[in-house]
């Protein structure tokens, strides 16, 4: 039984990393109707910025963390206003291609600036291990769980209880009406992209100590985040977070008990489960079906 709880803790930790990125994907999808393929790479780029702040500029971890979040916010706004918005009246296919182009650019730029070699990225949490009734938990896993849960909570509070959150929701739901009511929709969508970039940065900085920092380290996290978002319903922030935790814990348990599933097979198995879920519930577990009338 102890090992069961250990697998659950590891799963929740991984799930938290996916959840933060999945939340970013859902925010963007709700606000602009786009699935942003560059979301993971935005987090990757921010993590490299944090790396530079910590190891080149010599700034302490948490100060670098906060500075990176601020830079990510500005970067996300810039990406929306300078690159995505000029394509906003184009077809879905074009906009998806634009985000793929962005993925390629950020990936290449990171390799160019910081070299494609692996880099060590420190964890802010101690290496110690906690033991509660025989269940061994690493401080690293608990820290990641706390940070990702805090992110989800802050996003919920922001959208639910603040004036700017209301304006953000209004801009996503009815841009034309919102504009007539005096909301600066373009600015709001920019802020939405900025917030999503911050979330991706958190996801990247939490994932980097577990994986190693390379220009492509977020691609697999992105795939899991996509799977989580689709599993939960891509229009439901709650669903995306829940989907991410289900996915994280499910994979951790599965690879813990079924020894044939090594680290390489985890993602293909997750993909298979995802396809099955979609055949039964195409809108995800917590999504709402779209009704179309002719």
């Amino acid at each position, binding site marked *: 039984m102890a090992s069961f709880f250990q697998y659950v803790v590891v799963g929740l930790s991984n799930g938290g990393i996916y959840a933060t990125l999945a939340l970013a994907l859902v925010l963007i999808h709700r606000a602009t109707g786009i*699935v942003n393929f560059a979301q993971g790479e935005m987090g990757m780029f921010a993590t490299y910025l944090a790396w530079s702040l910590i190891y080149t500029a010599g700034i302490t971890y948490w100060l670098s963390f906060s500075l990176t979040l601020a830079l990510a916010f500005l970067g996300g706004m810039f990406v929306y206003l300078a690159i995505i918005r000029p394509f906003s009246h184009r077809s879905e296919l074009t906009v998806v291609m*634009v985000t793929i*182009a962005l993925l*390629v*650019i950020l990936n290449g*730029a990171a390799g160019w600036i910081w070299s494609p070699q692996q880099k060590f990225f420190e964890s802010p949490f101690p290496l110690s291990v906690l033991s509660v009734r025989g269940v061994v938990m690493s401080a690293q896993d608990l820290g990641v769980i706390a940070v990702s849960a805090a992110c989800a909570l802050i996003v919920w509070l922001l959208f639910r209880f603040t004036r700017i959150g209301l304006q953000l929701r209004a801009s996503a739901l009815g841009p034309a009406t919102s504009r007539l009511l005096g909301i600066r929709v373009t600015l709001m969508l920019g802020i939405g992209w900025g917030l999503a970039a911050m979330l991706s940065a958190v996801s990247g900085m939490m994932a980097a100590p577990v994986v190693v920092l390379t220009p492509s380290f977020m691609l697999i996290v992105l*795939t899991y985040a996509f799977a989580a978002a*689709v599993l939960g319903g891509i229009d439901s922030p709650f669903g995306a977070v829940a989907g991410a935790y289900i996915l994280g814990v499910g994979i951790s348990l599965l690879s813990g008990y079924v020894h044939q599933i090594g680290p390489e097979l985890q993602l293909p198995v997750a993909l298979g489960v*995802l396809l099955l879920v979609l*055949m039964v519930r195409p809108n995800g577990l917590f999504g709402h079906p779209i009704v179309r009338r002719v």
Partner: protein
Amino acid sequence: MNVSVGLVGRLGALAALAAVVVLLPAALSNFHTYQFAFVGIYFIAIVGLNVLTGYSGQISLGQGAFMAIGAYTTTILSVDHGVGVYWTIPVAGILTGLIGFAFGFPALRLTGVYLALATFALAIAVGLMAKSFDGLTGGGGGKSLHLPSSPIGGVAWQVWLYYLTWAIAAALLAAAWLILRGEFGRSLRALRDAPIAATSFGISLARFKTLAFAIAAFYAGIAGSLFAITVAYVNPDTFPVALSILLLTGAVLGGLGSLLGMVFGALFIEFAPLYAEKLNNSAPTVIYGLILLAVLFLMPEGAAGLIKKANRALKRASRRE
């Protein structure tokens, strides 16, 4: 009258292209001929991708993954089971097509962006799967094939592979053209542009979209098989996600919805990385990304669209005279 003029123009372009393809090896060294064999392989892959993305409007980031399946089919059949390497080409195409068909079923639930997500996951998963089923695929170390020698005396193997690839490419181009000009192509375009209206007319969305998916996978399977034969070596990193992205980039650059435009796309896929690498090791990816962005912004119909525009401008100019 206008239609036939367009057709004559296109046939002329096709004849010119065919002549260039046939005569090219005479003008090039064996090494460069070998590079153009890869152009033929990418051409096959993106003609298939174009059926799916250009004509049926579904975004796929999994074309490289399907190439991997074709390549492994050829490798496993010829190395482990002693099947003649050329016989494995159609087998690879059909098997990959069937897998594409099977993948197309759940993918049908996924319109537009969701399909892009699923195929993206497939592109990432396929390399990992090749690594973990090492009994079949040779794992991370990969598998080597015998480089085929030319059956015709006095012809270098590079030249032989070049003609083999382009002969198959020509046949598959003709097949795609025939498929798309008839009822099938019309139905696909109708489903792309007005799904609800098309379904009301009795066109089965499920059937046509799954078939388009299977066709794209079939083309990728053939391309992957030829890739394995031409390189004579396959490992899980031969077909990275970057290849799938590059194939989609090539198709957009060549012009979605134009089959002949894919020649430009294939040339870009083969040569852009080589030239960009001379600048800087990591720069190529940045440069493709920027080119892709510029193409999307400035010429959304790709190279083919640009030629069409130039043609129209020429006609207008000649009419004025």
